[in-house]
């Protein structure tokens, strides 16, 4: 089990992210929580292209299964590059 991204996303709780799914749906919202499978819960959600995808018009909070996530667009100031490099090297060593 890898904790690098689990920890990273935990630190990102409260920030705005856009989760892009493997069915091309993109959901923007505030990161509420994340677990070891990288399942994600978003609050205050809105679908990025609501005209094309009105399927979640009345959904404001949602649970997204980690396995259907393709990308997560991160806030530019939510990426501490030095910290990530160090954590990646540590993880690569199996630590």
């Amino acid at each position, binding site marked *: 089990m*890898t904790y*690098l*991204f689990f920890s*990273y996303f935990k630190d990102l709780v409260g920030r705005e992210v856009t989760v892009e799914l*493997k069915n091309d749906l993109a959901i923007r919202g505030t990161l509420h929580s994340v677990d070891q499978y*990288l399942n994600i819960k978003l609050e205050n959600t809105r679908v990025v292209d609501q005209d094309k995808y009105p399927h979640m018009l009345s959904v404001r909070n949602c649970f997204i299964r*980690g*396995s259907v*996530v*393709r*990308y*997560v*667009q*991160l*806030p*530019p100031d*939510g*990426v501490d*590059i030095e910290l*990530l*490099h160090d*954590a*990646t*090297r540590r*993880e*690569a*060593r*199996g630590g």
Partner: protein
Amino acid sequence: MTVKSGARVLPDVFGRFLTLSRIVALKILLKPLVYSLCTKGRTGMATEEDSAVKEPLDLIRLSLDERIYVKLRSDRELRGKLHAYDQHLNMILGDVEEIVTTVEIDDETYEEIVRTTRRTVPFLFVRGDGVILVSPPLRTA
């Protein structure tokens, strides 16, 4: 029975010792080579584990903080600076350019129309299960 197996212990231990010393010798011989592969991105003294290239992922570690090319499922390609990865090939990329290739079939001529759409994203987490290949930067010049 017990005597027999007991008698086998001695050469066994000796043999194992031989193999062990051979491995150590090999490691010492290979060290400069391995180190030369891994000089980039090392901070301070690296342990042997740190620098050994034993598996494909070790090569990706050498691409940390470099622009890489990633081919993904569903005809997507990414180019971006590698900031983090794990053993599932989950990644965080910076200054990402994504290219999506779609093929449409013309209603009248039935010709295939290949379209590519491009976009850029400042920072992107990429889930590893969609990754087909990762290509390190070209080391030209």
